[in-house]
């Protein structure tokens, strides 16, 4: 699965994206799984409320969304377009 990071999340994680084999079945578990692997994730995901998530390039409102058969999950702060 491709996991992408943008803005200050990208800077905290240190890479714009990574290809990972993950066990988790939903976004919530995926975040916990990442945090277990390295301290940098714990720091990046510290304030989970300020983080937005897109699954296969669609914004999700709920971390329980399944990530089975999903190609990419992206994490980023609130958007500041326009």
């Amino acid at each position, binding site marked *: 699965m491709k996991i992408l990071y943008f803005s200050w999340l990208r800077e905290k994680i240190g890479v714009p994206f990574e290809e990972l084999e993950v066990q988790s079945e939903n976004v919530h578990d995926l975040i916990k799984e990442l945090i277990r692997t390295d301290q940098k994730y714990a720091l990046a995901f510290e304030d989970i409320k300020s983080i937005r998530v897109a699954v296969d390039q669609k914004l999700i409102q709920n971390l329980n969304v399944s990530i089975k058969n999903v190609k990419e999950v992206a994490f*980023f702060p*609130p958007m500041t*377009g326009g």
Partner: protein
Amino acid sequence: MNKKINNCFISVNIQKDDFDVNAEIKSIGTRKIIGGIANFIGVVRDTQKEKEELVSLELEHYPGMTEKAIITICRDAQKRWEINFVKVIHRVGNLKIGDNIVLVITASAHRKESFKSAEFIMDFLKSRAPIWKKEHYKTHSSWVQSKEEDELSLKDW
């Protein structure tokens, strides 16, 4: 990315290059049924939050998703108002004070519909398009924080 839905032509571009407003207006093509063309240009300004002057504004985005998210916003606008043409160009990369950031053009038979739809699209771009801004100053840089008012203003629609 170009789409045509219910006789409304939707075109969305994410690009580093500047845009030419005249050329984009011309791209509307036939104007037989067009009575009003609303345009909005977002410009890099020095928000003067810092003591020093802004050196540049960096725009990062999520390639692929940005286009889709903006198309969705345009489609939502097109469901609410009778519009015949929507064009959105959003620049990314490094911009300077005074540079164009974004262009929204909507064309309709009626002025109200073109105004409202352009304003709607701009409001939703602010917090629904996966784009992030970083302000670079001489001595430091900082990510622009999303404004609560931008999120709240979406509820007025």
